[in-house]
């Protein structure tokens, strides 16, 4: 399953870091951050609960870039 989220982040490098962090989160199969469109597309593992996973994704992103936001 794929879902798209609006995000907020200031710099392109930080967006790259968010992408890395999201990819490493459990339950996430793949993630693509589009800095220009301020969107994050997350592909979840089969049968995963995307709501709880997105909380982890946000927490992991906050770790690498304090100043980011994902509108879940």
């Amino acid at each position, binding site marked *: 399953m794929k879902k*798209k989220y609006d995000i907020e982040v*200031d*710099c*392109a*490098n*930080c967006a*790259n*870091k968010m992408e890395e962090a999201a990819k490493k989160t459990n339950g996430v199969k793949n993630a*693509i951050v*589009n*800095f*220009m*469109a*301020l*969107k994050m*597309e997350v592909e979840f593992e089969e049968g995963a609960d995307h709501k709880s996973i997105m909380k982890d994704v946000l927490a992991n992103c906050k*770790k*690498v*870039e*304090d*100043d980011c936001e994902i509108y879940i």
Partner: protein
Amino acid sequence: MNKKQKKALRNIIIAIVLLAAIKLSERFIAYEELINGSFPTGRVILFFLYMIPYLAVGYEILRKALKGIKNRQVFDENFLMAVATLGAIAVALIYNGDYTEAVAVMLFYQIGELFQSIAVGKSRKNISDLMDIRPDYANIERDGKLEQVDPDEVEIGSVIVVRPGEKIPIDGVVVEGVSSLNTAALTGESVPLDVSETDNVISGCVNISGVLKIQTTKEFGESTASKVLDLVENAASRKSKSENFISKFAKYYTPVVCYSALALAILPPVILLITGNDANFGQWIYRALTFLVISCPCALVISIPLSFFAGLGGASEAGILIKGSNYLEALASTGYVVFDKTGTLTKGVFEVCETVPADPEMTKEQLVEYAAMAEMDSNHPISLSLKKAYAKEIDRDRVNDVTEISGHGISALVDGKRVLAGNIKLMRKFGLNVPEDLKETGTVVYVAVDDRFAGYIIISDVVKEGAKEAISLLHNDGVSGTVMLTGDSDRVAKKVAGLLGIKEVYSELLPADKVTKVEEILKKKNSAQKVAFVGDGINDAPVLSRADIGIAMGALGSDAAIEAADIVLMDDDPRKISKAIRIARKCMRIVYENTIFAIGVKIICLILGAVGIANMWVAIFADVGVMVIAVINAIRALFVKKL
């Protein structure tokens, strides 16, 4: 400007004012001479004075750097800036230096960040304005009143009302009203499109003149506007090689420079110490700090995706939708353009292109009139094109006794005269003498009136306006080959190709043969060249996906084509292919310029910094200056009108 940017601007102004005030006060107060016994009171006062603007502008950075360390994210730009400026302050404190540099580094860094944020925000807005086709609501008539509803909630088959000035929210058919539509946001075409009852309309167009009632044929999510928006939003997610290179580069570059800085701060002085010289720690630490300032990869990391984003935005303004920056990159090195003939270079509709009366008393108009009258009940494409050429309402009372002679043509009484219209077999059947082998490339309709051969009409597919120009533009662009593939007969293919100036033609191909041909071309070309296939999206999905770049044209409203193609031309002008290539090349040129410029300046400054020629000010230019220049250069990719 948003809240964050305003706050940053306020801090920058405060810092500049304070810094200026301190500088001014130094003219009147000799701080250095304020010494209380052995305690340098003046220097301590100066230190605290300089710390005010420093913290005003750098507090956020220091806070983020601390957080970064806590989260084990050491090598980020905040950390670099914090270490560089705190280091500079420490050096100044110990060696009685000037604090100005540390404050200035932080100040310029913040100015650069602010500039970048505004520039990115601006281009983001520019591009989303270009693609401003997202409808906010749909009007539905309930009990004689118009009600605005969410387009998502409108079911297929509902009737929506679109007033002048409003966007058509959902694809559908006009059931009432006449109007002109502005399709510029979708096609880049500025001439309005006239629509009336029974015309299909697509979402995203703006209604200009009259009220339209439209019966929807699709859901909002499946409508053209939504599909196009989806495509554009996803475009930047397919990253190009250049973008991947940059993010890889940034990943290694920053740590490498940081460790080099550390080495620069420690190794030379230690070696100097061992060899019995003056270690001069202050100088080497200062050089190491300039390294850190230069090391920030922002210029690259921001300007490359921004260039692609602007390029994609510029292209969509011109009615060219590109599904990803990787395709933009491929497009720039297009070596071969392979065309499908029908619907791409030709209009794909039959038209009367020549009328030749055999009887001197018969005018061209009369000949067409007789043929159209005889064929009035047929829906064959040939008959339709005859009726279209006649262009008048057919007076059915003038026609009697219509019989279709299968495989031959039609016999009918028109104004009491026996008219035969059909192929050569029909003429022979009635024993009429007609010129054979006309060497014409099209379908020939022979017409006989009262058992006398009256003339013939040639009906064929016509070459699109601009098709010839499109081919010569491509050759001018330095594309090494243009190829035409068609299922049509060799004779027709050769004629069209000759007319357009295409040298390589393959005719009488089945759809599967087209894939084979494209594969042959893929093998033939050299590895740096890309093969683009241009089709109209009908029956050529396999070829579109097999070629390096699949271009579908006039594909608006055709879901299959939008799915299969990598690039979608919103209108069916073949000249847009050359334009797309030029946009791609401009964008790639900017990408290379920025890459080489940014990496080049940084490496030069790193070398100069290591040997002590470049000071902190040069380092600031290498970081912020380069970034500002690269961002401005990147935005150029948005301007594609004159290409």
